């Protein structure tokens, strides 16, 4: 038995991404100028994304992967995110004079890994994908070799990451033992009463929960996010998170047993995660770190929709579609906003990321009106203000929760978002209502670099587009049999 051409086409994005990664490494000795490499990498990211156009729906490689609207959506999401991140990295790499080629290559490899995660329908493939993205992430986190924080974030991420991977792997082993296969479709058809299965799925949840930073597995997030180069942080906050959520949701919806086992776990983890995230962010003075905490909180919100899936699946006429839609829409809006926000942070941060505290943002409204305005928009979106992407995201999550009678979860989410409002608002307040104490250091950025500006503009437009005219995207995420593997 050999893979068909169709199968190859189905994984074309991954192939292209990896291919461009390799090409970058080969070009590096000859192609010295940075912009060229940046452009090349962006082309790669875009090409990979567009390649999804050719793939036809259905499972490939003997059921190892599933190419459906769901994975399509995530490929687009990842492609867009990576595209923006690369664009945003350009000025950063220049400022910190870091080697661009390897950087972009690693990013593209990571992207490929995430792509695998998004479409994997078999746990081992997923595992390989996860490792691809993780290992490149470890390296990227430590990419500023001479910066102490960077290396620390790398080592923490690496140790804890592989620790969690071990759990994930052990879970796979047990599931395999229980069902004799690692293919989700076959696992789905095994006797749910089996304790091995239960145990295995639990350990898988632990492993993946770590990757998406659910409390109490979130501990690594703030440190790693803070230490990593800011564009990389943007990638972490958007890419791997989305991809891992994708896998999580696929497992969750494909395996009935998981749906039953995990519901309460999701319920409780959701509350814990958003509370920890928001409360932690409440007291941060470093904007980058604050955003890290906020991304924890948002993982919590997303999880609310997960919890909603369980009961919604039983609902005959809607099915869990609204909940899926909520998750997807939320992740899309959230990722783009985060990329935008972190880009601004990296620009304001200046050389050596030395200006990231609230004080450094004081008076930004007058110094850099555009950056401040964009940042405010992103913050408002994270806060869930209407006419932004974040609002609809939160709105659909709310809706899903209430549809499935999870009133209490909704209320807790409400309270959390009120807490969240405080620190997002505080940053806005600082930017507009406080004047900078002391004079602005000379080397602090006076304006966004053109590339970063482009990224921000795109993010702003996306935020508003999703906030005002979500119909098109909704059409996609609400499409029939979004997840082919789902039962």
């Amino acid at each position, binding site marked *: 038995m050999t893979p068909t051409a169709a199968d190859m086409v189905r994984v074309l994005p*991954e192939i292209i991404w990896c291919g461009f990664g390799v090409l970058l490494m080969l070009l590096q000795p000859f192609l010295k100028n940075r912009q060229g490499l940046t452009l090349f990498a962006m082309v790669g990211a875009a090409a990979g994304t567009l390649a999804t156009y050719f793939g036809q729906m259905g499972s490939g490689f003997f059921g190892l*992967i599933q190419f459906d609207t769901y994975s399509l959506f995530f490929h687009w999401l990842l492609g867009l995110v990576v595209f923006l991140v690369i664009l945003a990295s350009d000025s950063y790499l220049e400022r910190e004079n870091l080697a661009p080629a390897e950087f972009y290559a690693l990013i593209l490899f990571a992207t490929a890994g995430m792509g695998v995660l998004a479409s994997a329908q078999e746990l081992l493939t997923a595992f390989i*994908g996860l490792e*691809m993205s993780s290992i490149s992430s470890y*390296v990227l986190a430590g990419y500023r070799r001479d910066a102490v924080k960077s290396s620390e974030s790398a080592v923490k991420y690496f140790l804890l990451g592989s620790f969690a991977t071990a759990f994930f792997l052990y879970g796979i082993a047990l599931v395999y033992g229980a069902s004799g296969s690692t293919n989700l479709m076959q696992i789905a058809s095994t006797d749910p009463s*089996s304790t*091995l299965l239960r145990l295995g799925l639990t350990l898988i949840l632990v492993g993946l929960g770590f990757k998406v930073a659910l409390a109490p597995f979130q501990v690594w997030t703030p440190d790693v996010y803070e230490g990593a180069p800011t564009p990389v942080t943007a990638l972490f906050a958007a890419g791997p998170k989305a991809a891992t959520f994708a896998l999580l949701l696929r497992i969750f919806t494909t395996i009935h047993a998981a749906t039953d086992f995990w519901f309460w776990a999701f319920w409780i983890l959701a509350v814990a995660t958003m509370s920890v995230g928001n409360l932690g962010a409440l007291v941060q003075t470093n904007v980058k770190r604050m955003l890290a905490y906020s991304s924890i909180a948002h993982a919590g919100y997303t999880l609310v929709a997960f919890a909603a899936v369980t009961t919604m699946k039983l609902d005959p006429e809607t099915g869990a579609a609204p909940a899926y839609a909520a998750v997807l829409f939320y992740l899309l809006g959230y990722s783009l906003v985060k990329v935008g926000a972190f880009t601004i942070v990296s620009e304001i941060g200046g050389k050596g990321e030395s200006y990231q505290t609230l004080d450094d943002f004081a008076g930004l409204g007058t110094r850099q009106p555009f950056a401040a305005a964009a940042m405010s928009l992103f913050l408002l979106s994270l806060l869930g203000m209407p006419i932004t992407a974040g609002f609809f995201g939160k709105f659909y999550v709310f809706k899903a929760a209430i549809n499935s009678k999870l009133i209490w979860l909704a209320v807790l989410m409400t309270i959390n978002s009120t807490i969240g409002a405080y620190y997002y608002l505080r940053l806005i307040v600082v930017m507009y209502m406080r004047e900078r104490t002391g004079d602005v250091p000379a080397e602090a950025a006076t304006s966004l670099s053109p590339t970063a500006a482009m990224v921000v503009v795109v993010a702003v437009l996306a935020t508003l587009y999703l906030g005002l005219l979500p119909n098109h995207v909704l059409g996609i995420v609400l499409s029939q049999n979004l997840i082919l593997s789902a039962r």
Partner: protein
Amino acid sequence: MISGVLVIFFVLAALAVLGAVSLILQSHPIHSALSLILVMVSLAGLYLLMGAEFIAAVQIIVYGGAVMVLFIFVIMLLNAGVEERTNFSKLATFGGVPLALALGGIIAAAIARSSGHLPVPTEGAISSTRKLSMLLFSEFVYPFELTSFLILVAILGAIVLAQREN
């Protein structure tokens, strides 16, 4: 009645656990590394016992050989001395050991009470190396190809991280 196989199993198992424990207790990384090698070797033995020769071989060659050598090499490189038993983390100091044991215990217990219904394995090798390679290049070709990129990433990463400032 205890068959010889069972005896071998228990010996190897004991060695493995012993190695693991000594890995924990040894204060010098080199000794820990050696203990780990002990674990791996005894596991290789168990693989043989289960009739998975190829895996056993790989275990010895790749793991016991390449990986562990790499470890020891690094230890030498950084000439890491005896590890200082600091206790900055209260949680780890007081909670660490019991919690870890609890986790291991629970998992073990769960497995013990669950996997009873597994079919009793038959004699002899169930998987020839041939079979494995067949699988590897047909059914699991995709992950297999991916691993190649994975290794590429690893190499690239290693270079990026470890290269001296030029």
